[in-house]
């Protein structure tokens, strides 16, 4: 496929159209519904728990920088965690392996604590750049968990092979851990070692649900409609294939969806 033919163009228009339409209506302030993700009340619970135990919260925003969508989702989730933390009054530690991300995390914390009316918590919280090396940062973070007696730990964002080090560290330190990523190679480790895992697209849904930020919200909903369309297309295809066999009208080479 060197150039898009009309079939591909059609699909493009449908998918992009749905997303843009929903984003637009979200910006217009039309209330879009997103079902609550079970992981969310877990966040509340974790924050409350660490308030009882009196330790700080630890948040790690993944290994990617802000050009990665998952990091943007993580930003939204950190905002929410800060707001919840403001209720219970615990401080937050953020660790990162990226000098570029330090100012951004700091901004988020300042802004959202201020918004929740507890600016002093922002000054108690801190963002720690540990090391440019991924796994040194991971090991450093587990060190922080022990030194600071962290009792709840949140891992949201893009993760690579180091995911394991973070979550295992939390396990040893006996933290309550909530993780979320859409890098599905890493999910098994989170499932095995965390108390709750926000899987793949749930991450974006979560963030959208919490922040109600129109762009994220709109595109999550728009993608949902896209998925529905795709699902129906597939079901039709399955029926065609069953009825007409190999020579079904939706077949790739002679059929409608050729490219």
């Amino acid at each position, binding site marked *: 496929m060197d150039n898009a033919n009309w079939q591909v163009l059609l699909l493009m228009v449908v998918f992009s159209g749905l997303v843009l339409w929903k984003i637009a209506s979200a910006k217009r302030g039309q209330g879009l519904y997103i079902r609550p993700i079970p992981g969310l009340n877990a966040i509340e619970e974790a924050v409350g728990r660490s308030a009882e135990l009196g330790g700080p919260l630890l948040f790690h925003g993944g290994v990617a920088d802000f050009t990665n969508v998952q990091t943007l989702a993580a930003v939204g989730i950190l905002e929410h965690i800060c707001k919840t933390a403001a209720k219970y009054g615990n401080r937050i530690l953020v660790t990162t392996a990226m000098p570029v991300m330090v100012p951004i995390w700091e901004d988020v914390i300042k802004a959202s604590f201020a918004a929740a009316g507890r600016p002093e918590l922002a000054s108690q919280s801190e963002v720690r750049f540990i090391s440019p*090396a991924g796994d040194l940062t991971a090991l450093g973070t587990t060190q922080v968990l022990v030194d600071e007696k962290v009792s709840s730990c949140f891992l949201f964002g893009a993760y690579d092979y180091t995911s394991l080090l973070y979550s295992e560290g939390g396990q040893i330190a006996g933290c309550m851990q909530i993780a979320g990523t859409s890098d599905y190679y890493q999910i098994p480790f989170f499932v095995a070692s965390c108390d709750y895992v926000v899987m793949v697209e749930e991450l974006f849904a979560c963030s959208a649900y919490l922040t109600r930020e129109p762009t994220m919200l709109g595109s999550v909903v728009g993608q949902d409609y896209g998925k529905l369309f795709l699902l129906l297309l597939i079901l039709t295809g399955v029926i065609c294939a069953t009825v007409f066999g190999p020579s079904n009208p939706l077949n790739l080479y002679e059929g409608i969806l050729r490219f």
Partner: protein
Amino acid sequence: MSWSEYWASGWAVWLGAFCVLAIYSYLFRDNPVYRLMMQIFIGINVGYAVVVQWKDILYPLWWLPMMDGIDALLGCGQGSPYGALWVLVGFLGLLWYFQLSRRYLWLSRIVIGITVGIGAGFTFKSLFGQNIPQVVDSFRPLGPSAVAVQPRRLFSLPPTVVPPLLDEPLLVLAGEREAVAVETLEGREVWRCPLPGPPSGRVRMGGDFVEIPCGPETVRIDRRTGRRVAGGPPIPPEASGQAGTDGGWHAGDGRDRLVKAGVAAPDGGEATVMYSVVAGRLFATRLDADARGGFWASDPGVPAKELYDGGRFVLASDGRSVAVVDASLGSVTARFQTTEAPAWLTVARMADPIYDQATVVAVSRGGRIEGFCAADHKVSRQPAGRLLWRAEAGKPLVWAGTAGGVLFAVGPDGGRSYELPPVPKALDASDYWDNWVFVITLVSVMTYFFFSFRREPRVVTGVRRLGRWLLMLGFGAFFGNTVMSRMSFLLDRLMFLVDDWIKPFFHQIFG
């Protein structure tokens, strides 16, 4: 070897071994040596990468064009002056570095924006290119279907009374009164030329001309313009045993031969081969310079009355029974019976490096078209000689031939072209069971990720729960494979320690 020699080559190994062990020491306790190693590693990597990236990418792709462009602008040196525009790219690139300053951070956003924009730009092509085949492959049949595979009808062709000339992109047909040339993609007419009388022999090519024997004289037509030019000498009536454009020919006393070129010889390279039939046995003889003489002899198992050139195959037939012989090995790959005695046999769809997709097309004068497996198809699991599909031209034919997966069948009442279907996969009960599992899994996983529908029927929540379970199954598989990767990194190191370090060292000590 003496110790001095050993150390001359061995120092590097010892250095490597030391690094490995120093880093493994971390496993038992965090220690400065490990951190030191880490820093050294990062440092060397960064320094090295900077130089190499400059030398390999920036210097040739950016610096040189820019300098040439500037030279060209100043009037000296060659190359396009547009190259000077790379200066701007340089400025853009500088903006990256504003990420380090809080005040001018926004400047860095410009270049980030551009890179992200570019990424977004070709996301579309990548995504659709990768995923549309995925979507289509998900159309799995859940049970055997009643509808059989059929060649797809493309376009109809004007009538011809003699075998036409197929020489892509042209197909030249000769009707009672006029000759017509059509192109073979859409069947559009290119030219037509009136004939003095009904043609008496096959249409054939002579250089830039098309020659059609009409009774005594031969009509010569310029194949570019379709204009008639001075007729040449009359062509003698076709001698039997001569290979025609349709690849088929008549065997008289069974000692005729068909010479064809372009068989892949087993030693790699091209062979020009002559096939001959003697007492029902099929002989291939190489005529090309490097290897003369016997090539292979084979017993097709049918009295080879007629031979057809099938590209990678030789087709021998007697009445309704057909044998397919691999042209470069001489092995019989398939034997089968057609429902009507075929008048034309060809092999279509031979793209695949292995036999897969190779289909024998048998066409009878009555207009019955049938496709058979030329050999055992591994991928589609169709056995050799299986009847794949059947179609009816519905009118008498004078000729049929294939070109690039398309069949042309023509006769006095007009003709038609068919796109031959790809070989369908042979499915059995277990395949259908797998398809059920596949489709259900796919649907439930996709349903699991619906977020925005306010009221969902009960079934959806059920499907979603199923989806979560199946996801877990998938993640289990992910973990299983992860273990293999992670471990092989370790093995690689241990192999280094054992083979390059310990073994030579002990060998050095104990000899």
